[in-house]
């Protein structure tokens, strides 16, 4: 374990591309332990792509991603699996296995990576489902519950192993304001109790201002990060007009992101 002072996740000179089309280049930022870190930007700027790189689902063209001082990009696949055991991830549409019940979905990581016996697993599963407000839904299949419940069930699976880092891809997209606030509260609660670092991709402004402690703004025009810091401070004091407008729901930012689309 490296010292606590050091950043939990470091992004160094990262360049991402699909073939010869560069999505983002020269990304350099740190995510500290205990942060709720938001990756922001207009549609199509590469937020989800950055998350995929951080998860190791895509390989960067250049640069490195460092977890706890250890390079993830140059790690072997066994080392990566080992690092990934400390992660909880929820995907945009949940990523629950549709052929398994909710209980089986949450049981799977527990069976794979812990030595709990069957009864203990059952009680842990009941606890995780209760945490996300789904107590009693053990035997439901993902198709039998609503979209918001699926998101929460996916969160329950993500926290099954008490992870160190929680990744969220658009956690509250498609949820009503109340559910999305409850989900935000849940994320903060999880973070505090697990002492975890949270990394999320989102453009839900209320949720950004409510819970985020740090953020990075990816710009689609210049294809790099143009700002970094606490979102509330960025809204009030950023010297980047685009970022200010984005956070204040300005029209100019919308125009800029629209203009950057390849047509």
């Amino acid at each position: 374990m490296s010292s606590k002072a050091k950043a939990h996740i470091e992004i160094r000179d990262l360049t991402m591309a699909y073939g010869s089309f560069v999505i983002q280049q020269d990304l350099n930022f740190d995510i500290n332990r205990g942060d709720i870190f938001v990756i922001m930007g207009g549609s199509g700027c590469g937020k989800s792509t950055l998350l995929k790189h951080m998860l190791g689902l895509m390989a960067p063209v250049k640069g490195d991603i460092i977890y706890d001082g250890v390079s993830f990009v140059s790690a072997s696949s066994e080392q990566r699996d080992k690092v990934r055991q400390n992660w909880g991830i929820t995907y945009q549409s949940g990523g629950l296995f549709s052929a398994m019940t909710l209980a089986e979905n949450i049981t799977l990581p527990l069976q794979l990576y812990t030595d709990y016996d069957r009864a203990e697993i059952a009680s842990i599963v009941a606890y995780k489902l209760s945490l996300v407000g789904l107590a009693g839904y053990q035997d439901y299949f993902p198709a039998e519950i609503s979209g918001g419940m699926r998101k929460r069930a996916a969160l329950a699976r993500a926290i099954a192993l008490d992870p160190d880092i929680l990744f969220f891809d658009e956690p509250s997209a498609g949820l009503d304001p109340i559910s999305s606030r409850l989900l935000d509260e849940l994320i903060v609660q999880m973070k505090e109790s697990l002492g975890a670092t949270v990394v999320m991709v989102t453009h839900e402004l209320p949720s950004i201002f409510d819970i985020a402690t740090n953020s990075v703004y990816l710009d689609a025009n210049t294809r790099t990060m143009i700002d970094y810091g606490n979102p509330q401070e960025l809204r009030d004091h950023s010297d980047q007009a685009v970022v200010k407008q984005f956070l204040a729901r300005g029209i100019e930012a919308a125009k800029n992101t629209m203009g950057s689309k390849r047509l």
Partner: protein
Amino acid sequence: MITEQTGFEIISVGQGKMSVGLQGNWTQSQQSPDFSQLRAALDVNSVQQFFISGVDLKEWDSTLLAFLLACHNYCQGSKVEFDVSGLPSGAQKLLEVATAVPIHIRPKELSRFGLASLDPSGLTRAGIKHLTDSLSFVGEVSIALTKLVMGKANTRMVDFKVFCYAAGPEAFFIISLVSVLVGMILAYLGAAQLLQFGAEVYVADLVVIGTLREMGVLMTAIVMSGRTGAAYAAQLGTMQTNEEIDAIITMGVSPIEFLVVPRMLALVLMMPLLTLYADLLGIIGGGIVAGGMGISPLQYINEAENVFSWVDTSIGLAKSVIFAMLIAIAGCRSGINSGRSSEAVGQAATQAVVISIVYLIIADAAINIICQQIGI
């Protein structure tokens, strides 16, 4: 350093109050006690208040919370007050979150499996429902085809061309392989019997009649049901999952006209052509085996020409058109009625292949019986 055992200790019992202290590390790697041990000690008849203290608690994780949740639910069920104020505030908060929503009780429903599924009346009803649903689907397709003929259907001809290519030229390789081998198998099968009578030359008769009337078209149809029928079911099932079919309906376009008709027409156009191709290759395959048995190619061709009839060929082609419709109906119907999950799409594809093969075999038998009765 004193290592404490993970567990709990009863501190005091009396006057309707019970206090329990937690000890040691309640983490994943430790052997922690099961809730049933505490339940045995907790007499719900005399205890009204249950206090749990975390003074001696060291590290904890979800293991502890799972235990506490079980305590909470048990206490709530037996109307005992559960006091957690002695626990670390993090654990208290998490327990509060976990118990904020009451436990959902699943409404009872009939099980899908077991003896109930063998009930004959249920099976008959399911069979009749399947039949009426299929017929109504065929009805809708007929209406869509009529509209197409009248020039009023919303069918994109671009789609039709794409499906023709997928159902025709792209299937050449597998059809070639299957029909050559089936032709050879037929020839071997006949040769073994005919050799006994010294009538090897009639292998050609067997192969030609067998291929034209039966094997060419049937093997093509079975390959196409696995290849194209399943593909149709998977495509439409994924479109259902993606809400694309909803989008088509709400645009005021019939999904039958837009999705089913071009697929069906493409298959109906391509199947006879593939069948002719399969017939030719099947006869060639038979010729290869015949050559190996000492029948010269000329003899084989001569005999084949004698026995060739347009009636056999057209029966084969008529079958291919009917089979094409059945495959398209089975595939598209399974796809459109598919559920909205990856598992459901898999089921739809399976169902499409199973149903289309059942349809094929029943239709083939029926056509053969009719041909026999009217003497062609």
